[in-house]
């Protein structure tokens, strides 16, 4: 069995364990046997309600968000050929949550449950498309990342404007939730709304994995190998945009998972972009389920937001990866 297969099996097992542990956590602690009985419909009715309506949807929401961000990060890094490319850094997450917030601010969200997910996805795809268009004009990835940082700051500024002018505390609190990122109180209905977009995005990313490997040799050589460069660019944009957008619709803006997960996976899969995608998605999922457990375990007065914890862990990791790269002489 190859190293990649062993890694994938290990990560699947870690995901299952993390999900079960997350279900055991809460004001009514449950040991694994009780959780499993409740999961398979053999437990106490009260346990089943707690697990199926509260804990499992929350844990699954964290898991799916991590899955989408891990895969999107790996795909964008393959396309832009840089380990620092990531939905958060490139402004995709911020633009997605800005669009979602605008729909909340103007009360559009009340019109239909589809409004917020659609707005978040539209924002994410728009930002990814801007980055991909900029990628056509410039070969410097540093420039691209700076454009992403600009995009992110601009979306952040507009979000602050919305917060500033929020008509009432409820709108303010809703917008803050999108900015900070959280999976608290998610239901299966919330998950089902975004699932089709997420699956579509992940399938697109999976379908282009071979092309991302070919890009290792540079665009000219990849073209000579028979890769359609235009097609892979817009498919990556669409795939990463849909998956990230769906994750924002579910959990708001959560950064750095897309950068840390692929970075940890790469040495185990010989740095092949195609083989990085699935394990990165699975690791992203484990990371967010565990981080969300941390959020629930920490004895703070107000519950911490998942996005805040992800950023506190992820931002130093980003700096570390950037420094490591410049030390290795392969400027970012």
């Amino acid at each position, binding site marked *: 069995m190859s190293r990649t297969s062993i890694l994938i099996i290990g990560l699947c097992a870690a995901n299952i364990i993390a999900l079960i542990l997350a279900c055991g956590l809460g004001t009514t602690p449950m040991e694994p046997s009780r959780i499993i009985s409740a999961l398979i419909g053999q437990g106490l009715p009260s346990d089943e309600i707690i697990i199926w309506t509260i804990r499992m949807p929350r844990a699954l929401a964290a898991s799916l968000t991590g899955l989408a961000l891990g895969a999107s990060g790996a795909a964008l890094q393959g396309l832009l050929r840089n380990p620092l490319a990531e939905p958060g850094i490139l402004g995709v997450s911020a633009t997605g949550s800005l669009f979602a917030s605008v729909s909340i601010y103007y009360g559009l969200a009340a019109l239909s449950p589809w409004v917020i997910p659609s707005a978040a996805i539209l924002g994410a795809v728009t930002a990814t498309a801007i980055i991909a268009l900029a990628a056509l004009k410039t070969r410097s990835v540093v420039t691209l990342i700076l454009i992403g940082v600009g995009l992110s700051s601009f979306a952040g500024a507009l979000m602050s404007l919305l917060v500033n002018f929020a008509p009432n505390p409820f709108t303010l609190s809703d917008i803050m939730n999108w900015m900070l990122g959280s999976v608290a109180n998610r239901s299966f209905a919330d998950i089902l709304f975004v699932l089709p977009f997420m699956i579509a995005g992940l399938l697109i990313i999976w379908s282009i994995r071979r092309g991302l*490997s070919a890009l*290792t040799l540079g665009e000219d050589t990849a*073209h*000579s190998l028979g890769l359609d460069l235009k097609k892979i660019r817009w498919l990556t944009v669409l795939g990463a945009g849909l998956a990230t957008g769906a994750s924002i619709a579910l959990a708001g803006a959560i950064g750095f998972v897309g950068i840390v997960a692929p970075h940890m996976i790469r040495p185990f899969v*010989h*740095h092949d972009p*195609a083989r990085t995608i699935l394990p990165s998605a699975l690791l992203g999922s484990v990371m967010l389920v565990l981080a969300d457990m941390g959020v629930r375990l920490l004895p703070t007065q107000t519950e911490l937001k998942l996005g805040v914890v992800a950023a506190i862990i992820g931002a130093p990791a980003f700096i570390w990866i950037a420094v490591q790269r410049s030390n290795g002489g*392969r400027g970012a």
Partner: protein
Amino acid sequence: MSISVENLCVKIGNTILVEDVSFALKRGELVVLLGPNGAGKTTLLKACLDIIPKTSGTVTYEDTPAADLSPQARARAMAYLPQIQPLTWPNRVKDIVALGRFAYGANPSTLKGEDQSAVDHALSDCELSHMAERSAETLSGGEQARLHFARALAAQTPFLLADEPVAALDPHHQFKVLGLIRRYVDQGNGALVILHDIALAARYADRLLWMKDGQLKADGSVAETLTVERLKDIYNVDADINGTRVELLGPRG
């Protein structure tokens, strides 16, 4: 079987990079493209491969215009060896060679049958089998040149277009890489190779193409086209020529 280029022009804005170039490359032929910096050699190669769009003219593979070939069909007809660039990721040697099978739908992680044997042959022809598992980052310059050539070989194309494959290599490795290209041609394939070393070109080429200012100035055998006058005209240098031996004496004027 051949690639024929007719009246090829490449213009970017108002600048003419390649002007009205026509030539043919047949199987069993090693053609070396010579010319000073900025002559349009790389542009010509890239236009043949459709990496840079042509302004006018045609590139025909067999009897089909290359523009009508699907990206996969083109990739199975012509392999491209660009000037060596740093790799994006420190991939494994055998994974990079496996990318040569991209146009056949091969997946480097699950190679089998013909794809696997093409990769194995390319690795052993380039004496890389023993380092197949190594990270490409740990290879020396000469080994990297062989690695990229192995990737092109694995594609099993009838034609190879190579851009300065021996630049930055020591003399021993220059001979080694050109020897590999010579062997590829002797097996019935065709190669168009850009070189800067006139002595090496004279030694290995079946035919020389001379370019300057975007135009093809001469096309013929080494004996016909390698002259003192030509070197003056193309490179602005004085030289002594004795058969296929060239001694550059210095710049003119």
